[in-house]
C-alpha cells in the first residue's frame, strides 16, 4: 500500500493517507518534526527528529511503529538533529546535527557508528544517491558536500586524502534548503536549492556546477522528475516551478531562463515535495497545512489532504507493508499477529562507543523482515566467511601446489592435442593438394 505521510513543526502528529484511495490511516501522535526530519526506516517504522526549544542541549529522535499511534522509542542524541534519512533497507539512520556534524547510526543495535564534522554550520538536508554509496549534505552556510560512505569509514584513507569529502560546492551564498540526486550513482546530477533564490545543478562525476537557475522566489523543496527531463521546485510564493534539465528553453519565459512552467493553487509557500513510486503523482506540502497531490503530466490537482492548521514541513511517499493493516482491521487476530511484529530496535546511542563490542559482530546486521517467519533467527554470515577465509589461507600452500600440478598436466595434454591437430591438418592439406593436382594431371593427359 502506497501511503503519503506528512508531519508538521507544530504538534499535529504524523498524518498518513493512502495515496490512491485517499483514505486516512492512523495518525501518529506528538510529533514536531524538523524540516527534512521525517523518514521511514525500511518500511518498518517511522522515525522523526524533533524540534525542541534551544535551551536543551540534546536532541530528540522518536520512533513510531506502523500500528500504534504512540511514540514507542525515544532516543536523545548529543545535539539537536535536523535532517534525518535512512537507507532503503533500513539498516542505517543518518542525521545532521546543529553543529554541522553528521551522525551515522546502525538501526538494529542503535550504535552510533560514526560521527564526523561535516560542515561549519548546521546541516539542513541530507540525501543518499540511488546506489547509496554517496551522501550529499547541505548546510546553513550554503555549502554542499558530497561524501563517499566508503571513505568515511576508511580511517587510513581519510588521513591519506587531502580532504575527507569528495566534493565541496560553495557557490550558494545562503542556506541550502534542499538537495536531491538523480539516477546513476556517481555519475548522477544533483540539484540543490538555496535561500539565495537559485537552484543549481551539479555533476557528481565532474564535480562542477552545470547550471544555475534563478527563481522569482525562494525555493524550499526540489523534486526530480523520474525521467530527469525537468525538476519541480516548490517556492515560498506558493507555486511549484518546473525547470528544464535537458534542453535550452526559449528565452521568452515569463519566469526566467530554464523555467518552463508552474503548478499553482494560490496556496501559501510550498515546503516539501515528493514523487509517488510510479513517478506520475507529485505530492506537495504547504505552509497552510494542506497536502496536495498533483498529476505531474496534466498539472492538475488530484487530491487534497489536510493535516493541521500549521505548516507542513515533511512529506514522504512510502510503501507500507500490509500486515499492519490486517492487525488493525481484525482485532481478533491481534494476539496471534503480535508475535509476528518484532519489537522496535533499541534507541540510538549518544556517543560513539569505543568499547570492543564492535569486534564481536563485525558485519552488517541485517534487519529482520517482519513478515517472513523464515528470517526468525539472525544469522551472521561474516563469521562463516572469515572462517572460510582463514581456512583458505592455511590450506593455500598445499592447495595451490596441487592446483599447479594439475594445471601443468592440463597444459601438457593440451599441447599434445594441439600437436595432434596440427598433424591432422597437415595430412589433410597434403591430401587435398594431391587430389587436386592429380586431377589436373589426369586432365592434361
Amino acid at each position: 500500500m502506497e501511503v503519503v505521510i506528512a508531519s508538521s513543526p507544530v504538534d499535529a502528529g504524523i498524518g498518513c493517507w493512502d495515496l490512491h484511495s485517499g483514505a486516512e490511516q492512523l495518525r501518529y501522535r506528538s510529533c514536531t518534526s524538523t524540516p527534512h526530519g521525517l523518514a521511514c526506516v525500511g518500511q518498518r517504522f517511522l522515525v522523526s527528529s524533533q524540534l525542541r526549544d534551544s535551551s536543551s542541549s540534546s536532541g530528540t529522535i522518536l520512533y513510531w511503529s506502523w500500528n500504534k499511534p504512540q511514540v514507542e522509542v525515544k532516543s536523545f542524541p548529543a545535539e539537536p538533529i535536523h535532517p534525518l534519512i535512512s537507507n532503503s533497507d533500513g539498516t542505517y539512520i543518518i542525521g545532521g546535527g546543529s553543529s554541522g556534524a553528521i551522525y551515522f547510526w546502525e538501526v538494529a543495535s542503535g550504535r552510533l557508528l560514526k560521527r564526523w564534522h561535516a560542515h561549519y554550520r548546521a546541516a539542513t538536508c541530507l540525501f543518499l544517491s540511488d546506489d547509496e554509496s554517496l551522501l550529499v549534505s547541505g548546510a546553513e552556510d550554503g555549502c554542499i558536500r558530497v561524501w563517499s560512505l566508503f571513505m568515511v569509514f576508511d580511517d587510513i584513507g581519510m588521513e591519506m586524502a587531502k580532504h575527507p569529502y569528495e566534493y565541496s560546492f560553495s557557490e550558494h551564498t545562503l542556506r541550502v534548503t534542499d538537495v536531491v540526486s538523480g539516477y546513476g550513482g556517481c555519475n548522477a546530477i544533483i540539484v540543490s536549492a538555496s535561500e539565495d533564490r537559485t537552484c543549481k545543478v551539479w555533476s557528481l562525476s565532474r564535480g562542477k556546477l552545470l547550471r544555475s537557475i534563478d527563481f522569482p522566489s525562494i525555493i524550499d523543496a526540489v523534486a526530480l522528475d523520474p525521467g530527469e527531463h525537468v525538476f519541480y521546485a516548490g517556492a515560498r510564493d506558493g507555486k511549484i516551478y518546473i525547470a528544464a534539465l535537458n534542453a535550452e528553453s526559449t528565452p521568452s519565459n515569463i519566469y526566467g531562463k530554464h523555467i518552463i512552467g508552474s503548478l499553482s493553487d494560490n496556496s501559501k509557500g510550498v515546503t516539501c515535495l515528493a514523487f509517488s513510486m510510479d513517478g506520475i503523482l507529485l505530492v506537495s506540502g504547504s505552509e497552510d497545512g494542506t497536502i496536495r497531490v498533483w498529476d505531474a503530466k496534466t498539472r492538475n490537482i488530484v487530491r487534497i489532504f489536510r493535516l493541521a492548521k500549521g505548516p507542513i514541513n515533511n512529506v514522504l511517499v512510502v510503501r507500507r507493508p500490509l500486515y499492519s493493516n490486517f492487525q488493525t482491521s481484525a482485532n481478533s487476530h491481534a494476539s496471534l499477529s503480535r508475535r509476528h511484529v518484532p519489537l522496535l530496535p533499541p534507541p540510538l546511542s549518544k556517543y560513539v562507543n569505543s568499547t570492543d563490542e564492535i569486534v564481536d559482530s563485525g558485519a552488517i546486521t541485517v534487519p529482520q523482515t517482519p513478515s517472513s517467519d523464515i528470517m526468525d533467527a539472525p544469522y551472521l554470515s561474516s563469521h562463516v566467511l572469515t572462517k572460510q577465509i582463514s581456512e583458505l589461507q592455511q590450506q593455500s600452500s598445499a592447495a595451490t601446489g596441487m592446483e599447479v600440478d594439475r594445471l601443468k598436466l592440463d597444459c601438457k595434454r593440451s599441447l599434445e592435442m594441439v600437436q595432434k591437430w596440427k598433424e591432422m591438418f597437415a595430412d589433410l592439406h597434403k591430401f587435398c593438394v594431391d587430389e587436386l593436382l592429380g586431377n589436373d594431371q589426369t586432365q592434361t593427359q
Partner: protein
Amino acid sequence: MARSKPSSSKKQPKRGVDFKKIKRKIGRKLPPPKNATNTEIKSKAIILPEQSVASERAGLAVSKKGLTLKELLQQTSHHNAKVRRDALTGIRDLVLKYPAELTLHKLAIIEKLRERISDEDKVVRETLYQLLKLVIFPALKKDVPGSLISLMMAYIFNGMTHLATDIRLMAFKFFDLVVQHYPSSFFMYAEKVLQNYEDILRKNHIYLQDRSKLKNALVGLVRCLSLLPCNRRTVDPSYGKNTETQGSLHAYELEVPKEHTDFSSIIKRLEDILPILVNCFQDFIPLVHPMSSLDAQSFDCMLYLLRSIDLSVKFFLYGIDKHQTDFGVTKPTYNEKDMPVWGEIATPVFLRKFLEVFPLNQLHNTSGKDEDKFFILNIEITEIFLHSNEWIFTSAILMERFLEFIENLLSGKIRFNSRSGKALQEKHLTSLLPFIPRLVSLVANTWKSRLLQAFTMAFKDCKPESTLNLAFLSAIEEMLLPSKRQGILLLDASEPEILDHQITWIRELPVLLVRLGDTLSSLSKVILHLLLRLGQYAPMNSSLAWEYDIMQHTLGEFYSMCLDDGSILYGPFMKLPKDCQELSVCCLYYFSSLDSLLLRSLVYCCLCDNLEPSVLFRIIDVLHSAYKIGHLQLVDLISFFVTLVARWKVLPGRLYTHVENAKKISNRETFKAITGAVCSCLRQMGDDALIFQIVQRVILDEIPLNPPIDNLCGMLRLLVILDSRPTKLSEQSIIILSNSISEYLIDAASYIPENGDEVTDSNQISICQYYLVPCFFLFDRSDKLLNLVLDLMGSSIGEDNSSLACNHDTQHTLDLSSRIVAVVSILLYMHQDIKIRRRLSSCKGEITRILQKMRLQLMQSSNEMGNTLEERHKIQFSFDRLKIAAGQLNCWDADELKIISLFE
C-alpha cells in the same frame, strides 16, 4: 576450362563477314578522312606601339618605384645588398598600399622572404625583421596556415645553426617574432628550439661582448618559457566567474585535450638548459662586484636569465604538482616512466649553489638607479627561491637572509629611489605576496610573527585604490579561512598572536570597503566575497565569529549613515552594481545577532528611491531567513517591516495618466509587491496573535504621523492579514484607527468611479478596491470601528473646512461640497458590498445624522453667497442618492424618512 577451348576456336571463322579487312602498307601516309576538320589558323601580327612602362601597369599594384610584386620578389635575391634592401622596402610600401595583394600572394611572398632570414647583410635582415613585424604578421593574424609557419621555421633553424653569430642571434629574434604572433608554434618546435638555445648559451663567453644580441635571444627564451604551463598563483580570485551556460546537461561532450603536447621532451631539454642558464648568470656575477656601476645591457641580460630560470623552475613544479593531483588517474600524456624525470633529482644541487649568491650587493655606495637594479635582481632571485622552496632543503642561514629581505620588502625598509619605483615596487610585491601564507605557515615562530607583523603593516598602509589590495586580500583569505582544496586551516587561530593579526585584518576590511566607495567595484566584490566566506566558515563561537559579529558596527556606514542634522548620507552600497549589493545582503545572514543600528541604516537604504526593487526583496528575504535561524530579534524585524511599509515613498500619480507617468504607476505596483512580501513573511512567523500585538503597537506609533494614503493602506493590510474575526484590536487602537480611517476613506473616495459612468477604467476599479478592501475587512470584524468612522465622517461634513485645513495638507482639505460628495460615494460603495450592507443596517443612527447634516448644509448654502449654484446642485444630487440607498437599507421606518423629507 580445358575442354571449352577447342569449341571457341571452331566458331571464330564464322564471324567477321560484316567488315571487310583493309590491308595497308607500312610507312605510307594515309589520306585524310573525309570528315576531318580543318584546324589551321591563319593570323597576322597586330603591333600596338607602347607608350610607356607605367601605362602597361595601370591595373597592377606597384610600389612607389613602379615595380610590381613579382619584380620586387625577384629582386630580393639580387646579389647586391642594396637592391635587396630596396626590394624589401618596396614590398612594404606595396603591401601597405594594397593589402589585398598580401592575402592573395602570401605564400609566394613568404616563400621568397624567408630566404632572406640568413642574409649576410645586417641591414637587409633588419629590414626584413621590421617588414615581418610591422606589416606582414599583423595583417595575416587572422588566417595562419600552419604551412606558412613551417615554411619560415625551416629557414629560421637554418639561421640558428649558421656560422656567423650575428645571423644566429638574429634567427632567434625571428623565432621570437613568430612565437609572439603564433604562440602555439613554440610547442611544435620546442625541442629543437630549446636545443639551439642551449647551444648558444653554452658558448656565451663568445657573446659576452655583444650583450644586446644576447639580450634579444634571451627575450625570446623568456617568451617561450612563459608559454609553458605552470601553477598559476593568480592574484585574482576565481569566484565571480560565471559558469558557461550549457545547452543540455546530459549531452555527450566532445572532449578535446587542451594540453596536446608531450612535455617529456621539453622537460629533458629544460633540464639541460637550466644549469647552463645558472652558469651563464654566474658568469655575470664577477662583472657586478668589482664594477661600480652596472650597465643597462648586462643588467637586462641578468634579469632575463633570472626570469628564464624562474619560469623553468615553475614548470618543473607544475609537473610535480600535476603528478600529485593526477595520481592514480591515467593520463595519456604522462606515463609512469616520465614522472620521476620532472627535475626532482638533478636540479636542486646547482640551484642551491646559485641561490647562495643572494643577496647581490654592491661594495660601493652608488647612485640610486643602480640600487634599484640590484633590488630588482634580488626580488627575482627571491621569487625563484620561493618557487623552489617546496623541494629544496635550504640551509638556515640562507633562509634567514631571504626572510629578512622579504620582511624588509614588506615593511618598506627597502624602497625604490627612482620615480617609477613606486609602481615597480607594487608590481614586484604583487608577485611575492601569494607566497606569504605558505611561508608563514612553514617558518619558525619568531619569523612567523615578524613576517605577519610586516604583512599587517603593509596591508594597513596600502592605499585603497592600489592594485596590491587584490594580492593582499587573496593572501588574507588563505590565512583566515580553510583553503578550498585542502579543507584545513593554514594558520592556527588558537595562538593569540596570529589571532591578533587576523582580527586586525578583519577590522580593516569594512573600513577598506567604505573607503573604496564605488570606485573599484571589482575590488569591493572581492572584499564582500571574503566577508561572506568568513561568515560562512568561521567556526561557531570562535573569536573569529565574534569578530565577524562586531564588524556590523562598522559595516553600517557601508549602507547609510544618519547625520546629526537628520539628513541621510548613503554609503557605497547604493552605488555598487547589483551583484555586489546581493553579496553584501547575503553577508547579513551570517551575523549571529543583527544589530538594530545596522537595521536602521539598512532601512534608510531600502527607503531610498534609487534602490532596485529586486535588491529590496532580497533584503526582506534574507532578514526573514536570518530571523528563522534566530539571528534577528522578532521585534526588530517587525519594526523593520512596518517602517518599510509606512515610510516607503509611493510617488503620487493619478491613475488616468499618460505615458510619462508610467513609472509612477509601476512604483505603486512595487509598493504592493513589498506589502505582499512583508505580509507573507509575517504570516510565516508563527504565532499570529503575538505578532499581531507587536505589529499593532508599532503601527499605532506610525499612524499619528499621517502617512500618505498608500502607506496607510499598506499598514491596514498588515493588520487585516494578522487579525481574525472578531477583531483583536484593543479599544484604544480602534479609536486611533477610526480617526485616520475616516480621513483615509474620504481620500480614497476620489478613486471611486462615478456611478452611472458608462466607461469605467478597470484599472481604476482595481485601485479603488485595493484601497477600500482592507477597511471593509476591519469594519466587518468590528462594528465599533464602523460606528466611530461614520460618526467622524458625519461630523466632518458639519465642520467648517478651515479647521480641517490647519492639520492636514492641501490634499486633504477638500472644500465642503466635494467632501460631502466623497462621503456619499463612500457610503454608496459600501452599500454595494453585501457584507458591509448588513453591517451598515446596524448603524442607521449615524447615517441619519449624516443625512441631517447634509440637509442642513443644503439649507445653509442656499442662504450663503459663497456657494455657487453648481455646488448646491451637486450636494442635492448626492443627498438624493444617499436617501434612496438609505431607503433600500430599510434601516429606518417610514416616519423617520418623512421627517427628513419634511425638513426639505
